[in-house]
């Protein structure tokens, strides 16, 4: 059974341990701007929402890449950016309708969550269980994917 990240906003306290863990795992820095997981803050209601790539089945980023720089990891199901191949054209960043693949000016390449080879640093760092790495069926991810597929185009075609 493939696992995936389960993100639970109700448990998130906004401590940003996940962002630090991600930045450290990938770049050995605690500069959270480099994190591939982001916690969004909603001041008007005091809520925190951790958010990153769902490794969606459509893999918009992967299919849009003109030079084959995004690969599917058959074991984890992650869509992984091959940095040496990426030309930094940013097409994937507009193709992903979730906004979860981003350009990094310093490297001239894009980055996204790669599930850390099946041992995600963010999940390990989260002190409240808001981020867990669990069997895919258990996650809110299924719901989120369903959301992504559900589009309301009636007005457009009417």
């Amino acid at each position, binding site marked *: 059974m493939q696992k995936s990240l389960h993100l639970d906003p109700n448990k998130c306290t906004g401590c940003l341990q996940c962002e630090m863990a991600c930045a450290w795992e990938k770049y050995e820095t605690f500069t959270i701007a480099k994190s591939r997981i982001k916690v969004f803050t909603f001041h008007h209601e005091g809520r925190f929402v951790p958010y990153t790539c769902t490794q969606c089945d459509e893999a918009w980023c992967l299919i849009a890449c003109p030079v084959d720089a995004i690969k599917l990891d058959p074991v984890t199901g992650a869509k992984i950016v091959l940095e040496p191949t990426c030309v930094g054209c*940013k*097409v994937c960043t507009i193709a992903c*309708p979730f906004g979860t693949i981003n350009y990094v000016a310093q490297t001239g390449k894009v980055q996204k969550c790669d599930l850390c080879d099946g041992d995600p640093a963010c999940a390990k760092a989260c002190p409240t269980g808001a981020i867990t790495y669990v069997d895919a069926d258990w996650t809110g991810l299924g719901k989120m994917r369903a959301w992504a597929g559900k589009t309301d185009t009636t007005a457009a075609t009417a």
Partner: protein
Amino acid sequence: MRHVIIGSGPAGVIAAETLRKADPAAEITVLCGEGEPPYARMAIPYLLKGDIDEAGTFIRKDQDHYGRMRIGLVEGRALAVDTAARVVDLGDGPGLPWDRLLVATGSRPSREKIPGIDLPGVRTCWTLEDARALLAGIRPGTRVVQMGAGFVGCIIMEGLLARGADLTILVRSGYMVRRMMNPTASGLIRRWCESKGVKILTRTQPLALSANGGALKVDLGEGRSLDADLYLSVVGVDPNLEFLAGSGVEIGQGVVVDANLQSSVPGVYAAGDVAESPDVVTGKRQLNAIQPNAAEQGRTAALNMAGHPTRFKGSFVFNVLTTLGLAASSFGEWQGVPGGESTEVLDESRFRYLNLQFDGDRLVGANCVGFGDHVGAFRGLIEGRRRLGAWKRRLMDDPARVMQAYVETAVPACGAG
């Protein structure tokens, strides 16, 4: 089942791969019209910059890939299609028979109709062959006069400057990239280019080109002219359709297709730059000459060809462009819709700009300059026709919070959505 795909760009390659997965027994042939391995045009700017070599532009890096997938690559150009006998005419030989045909011939640069356009020293930037010529022809100090500042014109500037070109850009209208950016965004991009030493002449169109010693004279009228070592003509694109004349396939601006990407002739499909398909936001049929569209249409057309009816979600017009390092993107109805509302933030000194267009409480379009993070969410919001509810007001006040709006309306456990 014999599938023939005309064209080995991204639409053709992705269609072939999708067909193989969907129909393991099928015979799949891809016609390559340029004598090159399948490559992605949009990697050419990075070849010019020297970031990659030619192999870096290949759509699949492992050239055994096609053999392993039993995808036959055949060199040659389609000259005509006989839809009654179901063969593609290649000029010599018996032609390629097909049961299902995909037209994925892409587009080519439009030709300027001015005297001298055939002179040596005049080039465009569309194929690997063009890129080789530019790499060979541009040295430090080479005077390049580029006609056109559409999105290809903007993307290639960095490569030209990296080669040391002395670059002058002529723009027929008042605005660069006017098909994807509004005047404010376009003005920022112009100022950015000028700050990097590029000369830009708007409302300027050459009347003629003439040989002048080893160089070219570009006649701008009213006694004005420019000297150029190289004249680079990048004034838009036209779909490659000529070989379909007399085939019975309905042609509008491109190959007219239905929601399954099938043309007016059953069994004949089209995908990519060459296909005229309905836009998801406006419902209007249009060409959509961008890479992600080619990829998604290639996949959808192939599923239909393999007998799995699949509707194309519809073209959505969006694009991202980097001009000398300045990122800009446009989405959907960035020009706004009748009765709609808009909001924007501009920081001229930092070259940052964001303009949002709404229809009721839905986002329908956007222009961004200098904003790179989470831009995909614009696609999610616009194409998904998400209702923003209370977020509409918040975004009117602070457009930069678009990702927050997206997350809160998107993540199911997160409230508003």
